């Protein structure tokens, strides 16, 4: 599947970038990290590296032309012929030379429709896989992203250079897929339930785990296990994927309630979660009202000595009794963590 080459935001106030030169020819093999093109911003000319292995194809913006930040300027495809059907002979490549007119529609990769993007969105993991590991962002940018439900990995996917600061969140908000994902969904009817539990019991439980195992447990993973158990309550043995989010980072767990709390295994990337657990305890947020997302979302916030649990979902995602069971089961485990062991 072809990967998009996107005009990155190289400066804080940059809206377009001028492609000074392509450093690879169409059809030429590229490796992740190879210098792909030279882009001029208001301040400097910078080399932009390839974010994937493959072949440079479908060059849509010729050298000497400018493109808006976030626009697809080329593709990195699995074959030298690009996203079109069969591999084309060399003369066809010449027709796509950078100096020529923009590529024809037949050579353009199919851009995911909003609907396709929506389906892919909850499992945003693959995008992060390609950029590898940790995202560098300031603590403030991370906190604001968590508070506003923004996914920093989308900036990585868009090719924006790290580290990310608060100013980069504007770029993130402006990325086209964001509106496609959230706009139609947040307007639909929703269920929202909240529960309040004292924070002491869960904190004490973590400390007990630390004493037992000798290592500080990952609180978010422990909560993911409890959430999965609450969702599973009396129901199926089907595999259960939970996406756990904390400080703008998202992890995917498979059956986190099964291997014992805190030892949850990462799910294979690309799988769609049944539930998102959003750990917002490290932020100043006390109340959550984010609206419906692709799957039910459990948010945990701190409010003085208490934790507030909020469940948001669409009526079609959970029936009333299932929603009540889920939040009361989860809140009950936070209040009395030993219940999970029974």
């Amino acid at each position, binding site marked *: 599947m072809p990967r998009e080459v996107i005009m990155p935001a190289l400066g*804080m106030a940059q809206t377009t970038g001028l492609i000074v030169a392509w450093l690879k020819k169409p059809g030429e093999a590229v490796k992740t990290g190879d210098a792909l093109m030279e882009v001029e911003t208001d301040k400097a000319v910078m080399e932009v590296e390839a974010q994937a292995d493959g072949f440079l194809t479908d060059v849509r913006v010729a050298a000497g032309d400018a493109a808006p930040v976030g626009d697809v300027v080329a593709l990195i495809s699995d074959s030298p012929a690009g996203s079109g059907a069969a591999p084309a002979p060399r003369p066809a490549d010449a027709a796509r030379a950078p100096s020529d007119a923009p590529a024809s529609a037949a050579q353009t990769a199919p851009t995911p429709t909003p609907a396709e993007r929506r389906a892919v969105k909850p499992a945003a993991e693959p995008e992060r896989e390609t950029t590898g590991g940790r995202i560098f962002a*300031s603590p*403030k940018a991370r906190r604001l992203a968590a508070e506003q439900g923004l996914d920093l990995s989308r900036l990585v996917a868009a090719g924006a250079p790290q580290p990310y600061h608060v*100013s980069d969140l504007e770029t993130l908000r402006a990325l086209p897929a964001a509106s496609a994902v959230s706009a139609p969904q947040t307007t639909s009817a929703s269920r929202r339930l909240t529960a309040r539990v004292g924070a002491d019991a869960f904190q004490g439980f973590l400390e007990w785990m630390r004493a037992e195992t000798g290592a500080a447990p990952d609180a978010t993973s422990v909560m993911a296990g409890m959430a999965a158990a609450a969702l599973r309550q009396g129901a199926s043995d089907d595999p259960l994927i939970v996406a756990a989010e904390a400080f703008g980072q998202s992890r995917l767990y498979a059956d986190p309630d099964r291997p014992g709390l805190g030892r949850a295994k990462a799910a294979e990337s690309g799988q769609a979660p049944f539930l998102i657990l959003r750990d917002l305890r490290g932020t100043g947020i006390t109340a959550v009202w984010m609206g419906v997302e692709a799957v039910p979302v459990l948010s945990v916030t701190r409010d003085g000595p208490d934790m507030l649990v909020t469940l948001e979902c669409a009526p079609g995602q959970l029936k009333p009794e299932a929603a009540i069971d889920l939040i009361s089961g989860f809140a009950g485990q936070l209040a009395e963590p030993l219940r999970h062991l029974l």
Partner: protein
Amino acid sequence: MRQITLAKAVNEAIAEEMRRDPTIFLMGEDVAEAGTPFKVLSGLVEEFGRERIIDTPISEPGFMGIAVGAAMTGSRPIVDLMFGDFLFLVMDQLCNQAAKTHYMSGGKLKAPLVLRTNLGATRRSAAQHSQSLHGLLAHIPGLKIALPSSAYEAKGLMKTAIRDDNPVVIFEDKLMYNDKAPVPEEEYLIPFGVANILREGRDITLIATSSMVQVAQKAAEMLAAESGISAEVIDPRTIVPLDEETILKSVRKTGRAIVIDEGHQSFGVTAEIASRINEKAFYYLDAPVQRIGAMDVPVPFSPVLEDLTVPTPQIVVERARRSVKGELFDAA
């Protein structure tokens, strides 16, 4: 309002307090007729006599010990230490005795003394007369440390120091004695542990002590004029006690901070303040907290080299600019 020099402000503070309280006396090297090498105390011996303005031999450990004993038995001594570098000579009297007397006597004794001395390089005084050692003393519980940044600050902080029942060390910058500032005729005191916000800003907080406050002010002016960057300038006034709240509140607002102090950078005042910001305002930081201290070298005698070892407005401006642009980042 009248303008007076920092030297005159210190002189006035001591004279006013000595008139008010007969238990106060002052001693040190060349403090009487000579009025100290910086002429800070000129005229005091004429008004208060040799009983209360006492010239000592060159014997810092001796007269510091006398002061601790006098303080424990009802006097309120002011000790004049000609150069801050001589602190190394009085460490036991100051840190083992004065700082711990109240604690070890179960509160039955106190040591209300003031040690006034100085800091600051670029006076071409070489490595043994140019150090800024306030961070060293701030490490010792039981001592309070005041760092006046102007004539106004020097007078108000000195009067508070003299009235404090704990040992207080007050460091004046030896290059600022002739700097003038508006100082009111009427009496005023400046409480310890209350920072001064000299300039309000939006983009970055500059926390600076002593003469570095001038450096930060100058940098803030340059940043505003040249880069449109709005810097907030905070003078903690005392580093023990430290007004953490004012600093944290500012950093939570701006998201960025640079700490500037003339002590050696490693293990110093800048490290302590930067660390507290990291611990208590981490999720509000949009850039790593920067430290700018003096270079970790003995202060050179060569004027050219000496000037390179201390923080300057240009260094602050450069770091602030890169911080605001999001450039300063060490991921390794």
